[in-house]
């Protein structure tokens, strides 16, 4: 359901056809982003002063890796066109500025307050159009949780686990635990694809779909298991360890007690 279908209707051998498609695509996507970012711009209203302030923060905290003009260096990618959503996600969750290069950026204590984060986001957004910070109406978590659960299992569970508990990827990379993530972070992660996560754009999962997924995750977060302690929601491995160490261990304690009484 979230798989794009491509149909080759043009004669691909013609160079003109390819150029036309490319131009049309660029126009459409660029125009779309321009409209989207202008919509956000109207709401958040970053002025030139904010952008200048953001640039200063950027130069002081980010430029050593991302380059003075956010053009990227050997150590870090270019930020031109990543959009405000990406900056907001990485900085407000504490992933950026990165502490050390490694398989994946770790979540750590947040370094900037909301206003500073917004200014940096405004600066990066001013460089080129990119995904904007989602509007409150997109992340209201008031969608269909059944549909959200279904979408989550199909699109997300293979990395993040069916209960959102996270999972391992290759070479030290991992999909983090989603319990504790807020709707804005989830939406931003979906549209920017941070680190190893793929981008789920609006053609792939529509804003309504994304809201459904968020609704489902918020349900899981606010409704702990009715069966008691969840043991980290990590599944049968933890249950097996628990039965050996705690349950059987406790019962062995009882057997020793029963065996000792008679001596």
């Amino acid at each position, binding site marked *: 359901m979230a798989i794009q279908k491509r149909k080759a209707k043009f004669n691909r051998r013609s160079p003109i056809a390819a150029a036309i498609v490319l131009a049309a695509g660029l126009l459409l996507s660029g125009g779309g982003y321009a409209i989207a970012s202008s919509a956000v711009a109207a709401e958040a209203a970053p002025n030139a002063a904010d952008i200048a302030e953001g640039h200063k923060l950027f130069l002081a905290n980010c430029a050593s890796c991302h380059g003075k003009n956010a053009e990227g260096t050997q150590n870090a990618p270019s930020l031109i066109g990543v959009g405000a959503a990406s900056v907001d996600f990485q900085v407000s969750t504490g992933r950026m500025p990165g502490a050390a290069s490694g398989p994946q950026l770790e979540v750590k204590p947040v370094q900037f307050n909301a206003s500073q984060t917004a200014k940096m986001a405004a600066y990066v957004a001013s460089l080129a159009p990119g995904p904007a910070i989602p509007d409150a109406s997109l992340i209201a978590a008031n969608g269909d949780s059944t549909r959200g659960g279904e979408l989550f299992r199909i699109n997300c569970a293979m990395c993040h686990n069916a209960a959102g508990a996270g999972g391992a990827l290759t070479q030290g990379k991992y999909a983090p635990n989603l319990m504790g993530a807020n709707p804005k972070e989830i939406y931003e992660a979906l549209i920017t694809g941070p680190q190893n996560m793929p981008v789920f754009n609006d053609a792939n999962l529509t804003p309504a779909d994304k809201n459904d997924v968020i609704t489902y995750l918020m349900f899981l977060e606010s409704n702990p298991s009715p*069966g*008691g302690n969840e043991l980290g929601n*990590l599944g049968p491995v933890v249950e097996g360890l628990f039965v050996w160490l705690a349950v059987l261990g406790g019962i062995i304690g009882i057997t020793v007690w029963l065996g000792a009484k008679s001596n």
Partner: protein
Amino acid sequence: MSTASNTQKKGGFLAGTANYLDERVGVAGILKEFGRKVFPDHWSFMLGEVALYSFLVLLLSGTFLTFWFQPSMAVVEYNGVFAPLKGAEMSIAYASTLDISFEVRGGLLMRQVHHWSALLFVAAAGLHMLRVFFTGAFRKPREINWVVGFALFVLGMAAGFTGYSLPDDLLSGNGLRIIDGMIKGLPVIGAYTSSLLFGGEFPGETIVARLYGLHILLVPALILIFIVIHLFMVVIHKHTHYSGPGRTDSNVVGYPLMPVYVAKAGGFFFLVFGVIMLVAATFTINPVWNYGGYDPSPVSAGTQPDWYIGFLDGALRLAPSHLEVVDAFGFTWAFNILLPMIVGVGLLAVVAVYPFIEGWVTGDKREHHVLDRPRNAPVRTAIGAAGVTFYAVLWAGASTDLIATNFKTSLNQVLTTMQISLFVLPVLAFWITKRACLALQRKDREIVLHGRESGRIVRLPHGEYVEVHEPLEEFELYKLVDFKAYQPTLARPNAQGKITIRARIRAGLSRFFFEDRIMPVTGSELEAAQHDHGPAIESQETKALH
């Protein structure tokens, strides 16, 4: 029992009932026979009981669950109380599992009781097997009972697996898909077997109903029969006991069944039941509502089987990839699946036949009712440690992903480490355990011959310092000297004067088992040691004191 005949004279309801039963089914004779059965007392003898009691809890809670569970894969729209699945299409099996969890009074508790006691059943049975193995309780006359116990362990795994797949949720469906893949990996018969089992292409529409039949009828019936045989053989053989004063291969030292063990075991049942209830009431197990109904397209990260199937899943994960041979002799040979299956089945087969191997190597046809201390059979203990290590690495292999994320390491490195560990660690475990056993035996010999170090240092008149060793009481000596040490046998020619390969293998194994050995202290050695050291130290001690 004698009390029954006493009260009979006085009359009364109890006596009347006892007499009524005795006249019709000979209850006095049965009680006389069973009530006098003697069982030795030791905590490690109660592990099998834990498995038995978990099984009783399984029968009770399982019966409760059958009242509401519907093993059908027909599709319905869920309209229960669990919001994030409302309106979703799912099988009746999954919907009824959700109903048991959310709408049947006490249903979730019973589901959790059933699942926790299933995990406990196999765990307790496994630990009981380890106790039997390391104390040599499988030796003649109990070899067959070992095999019966082994069958119970495998049946426990079968019961667990068939039950795990019933809710038809995403997790169990993923597990079933792995089994389907393993079956299909079998050369020649794989595809046919899978097709027969699932009634067509996976997942089909019948597998839940079929597994349900196995889970509630065949497998529990077999377990029950094997438990009866197992316990019956315990009664025939009588229970083993640890060495100690007055304990020999021809007696059992302990307390009678009536009244001591009836009370004790009855109480223990309720303790085990209580622990299971407490855990089931406070800890979630298998939150099926999180997984959603089974749909063959999604696969969740962190999909694992229950612990007792973990070693097979681990074997699959640890197998090197790209071992498939496509189109050899007209078939595809999926060695990346066959190899782990051979390893898993091979490990179980070695466990099943071990008593016969050891019996053949020692050639010991005597009955053994006094248990070995693990250190007194160094090579057996070392083989056990190696086997446990091998199993443990396979088992840990089933959770490579969780190890990687929780200890912040690379999944690939964890996997490689485990692949190496699977071969290196058992060898290390064997060597370390054997050496440790021999060292402990040497220590025992030392203690028997020279007494226990008392920590008291005495200076002799000529300036020499000695530590006073306290000789052991005779009561304590039994434990340390009462064991048999075998010697390696040589390959002997048969009647035709030829040394057969069989004899050579046996001699080789015998050398492997008994080449390094510490002999138990003999009476004359003990006497000699006491003449040499005992009186001397004692006289010095008295000198020092006065």
